[in-house]
């Protein structure tokens, strides 16, 4: 398998606080990789540094064999890497349809846009029913689906998902993770950041555990689930 993304010694500093103390990891094409950890472990900072929303103070991000470390975020997005931000980033006054259309403006392959739109509506029938509604009026689960659908409409092949389960009912969380699995089977590479460690480990192929801005442990998700230390700290251990 080929590495689609490589992160090397990534460091992010907010004022005097070091949010990331030099983390390294990689993602293979077609994988689901999850980064789990407690609040403030540096999960969101990792995603934000990758997608260009914050400038890393040092380190490198390579995507599809290109150094994207200091590219502006809209150019990173145009290379097929879409970040679904924490809190879903709804354009609340715009309709569902407008949210989706907006995501296609950077694309050159106009012929495929229509196809993708139909695919998104097929994946998320509820969005199709609410096409003309303001996205701010959707339920939390529907908004998360729209956020993911929107990322797909950018034509991205790699998705960065920041806490897709946040604030959602367990049943909806299950649905969202089904979607993530389905997208992966359809060929999307996914980097998933989660506090909900159990669900994340059950979905992902590999995982990195972050603590205080550094990688504490990494390995196959299946191995980490049974790791006693991980169990105790993150899975409400037995």
């Amino acid at each position, binding site marked *: 398998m080929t590495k689609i993304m490589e992160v090397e010694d990534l460091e992010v500093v907010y004022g005097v606080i070091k949010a990331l103390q030099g983390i390294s990891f990689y993602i293979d094409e077609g994988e689901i990789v999850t980064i789990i950890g407690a609040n403030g472990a540096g999960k969101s900072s990792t995603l934000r540094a990758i*997608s260009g*929303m914050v400038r890393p103070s040092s380190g490198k991000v390579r995507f599809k064999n290109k150094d994207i470390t200091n590219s*502006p*975020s*809209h150019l990173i*997005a*145009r290379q097929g890497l*879409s*970040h*679904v*931000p924490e809190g879903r*980033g*709804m*354009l*609340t*006054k*715009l309709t569902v*349809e*407008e949210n989706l*259309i*907006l*995501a*296609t*403006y*950077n694309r050159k392959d106009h012929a495929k*846009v*229509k196809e993708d*739109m139909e695919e998104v509506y097929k994946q998320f029938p509820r969005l199709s029913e609410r096409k003309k509604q303001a996205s701010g009026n959707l339920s939390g689960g529907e908004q998360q689906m729209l956020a993911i659908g*929107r*990322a797909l409409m*950018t034509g991205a092949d790699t998705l960065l998902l920041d806490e897709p389960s946040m604030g959602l009912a367990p049943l909806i969380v299950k649905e969202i993770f089904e979607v993530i699995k389905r997208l992966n089977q359809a060929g999307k590479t996914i980097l998933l950041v989660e506090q909900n460690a159990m669900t994340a480990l059950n979905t992902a192929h590999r995982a990195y555990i972050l603590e205080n801005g550094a990688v504490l442990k990494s390995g196959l998700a299946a191995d980490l689930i049974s790791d006693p230390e991980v169990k105790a700290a993150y899975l409400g251990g037995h």
Partner: protein
Amino acid sequence: MSISKSFSPVKLIILFLSMVVLCCLPFVVSSFVLRIATGIMMWIGLALSWNMLGGYMGYISFGHGASFGLGAYIAGMLMTQLHLPFFVSLLIAGILTYIFAALVGYPTLRLSGSYFAIGTWAFAEMMRQLVLVLTITGGPEGLRLPPMLNDNFFYFVMFGLALLVFMVAYLFFEHSDFGLKVKAVREEETAARTLGLNTTWVKNQVFALSSMFAGIIGGAFAYWITFIHPDSVLGPLIADQMVIMVLLGGIGTLFGPVIGAIVLYVGNQYMLVMWGQSSAYLIILGLAICLVILFLPEGLMSLLRILRGRRRGIIKRLLPGMKKSNI
């Protein structure tokens, strides 16, 4: 793909009839009324131009008066010092204001929210002080333009400009891909960037475009009034009035700024005639703003919606405690 919404035939007919009426206006009303109508047109144009930036993009600027004043001074100086014809001066004033705003926008648009408001305000104040001390602008003496005493001419110029700004707002901000991008910046800038939108470019374009229109209108104003002074075209009240007109009418809507400009300007002139120069206007203005923000947060435009029969939603919002059966 694009979003398609269009005017209904009824609306088109109303719009057409009002155009005809407005074109005939100079030939039926007194010159006093015509001057007020010219002022209304000017403020409609200014409010619409401010709305591009503050309404559709959500960047509340208190420095838009600087663009107006800049346009007025550029056009005035071109006409008096280089003796260029009016329309040529107007065009150059527009282009230069656009370029100037693009340069100013680059640093100021990095700010957002109230910081942007303060930044633009400070910038406008700086412009006023600069014009006061420079000799080329006439400094505190002001600038006197060659008089042109033709009320009809200025009415049609302002009417044309207001119409132009209205059409740009309608075509580029209400019904286009560009408008959707602008609204995305207002709703969630970071999310817009993750979708591959170059928000810096969009913001700069909107800032420069809306400033350009304010500059052109400023140029026309200078020729109309024939005497400009830093306090009359670069004072803070110019920008304040644009903000208030848009808030009063309905921010981020197409007709809101139009309605706000008409109501505020007519009210202002009425009070001027009744009581002369007094601060009563400002007091009543303040009260009106409080009432609108408390009861009609979407401006007078939401009153229109009541007339259109969406009574219930509004009444419910006004009287949240009321039971459904009572309505």
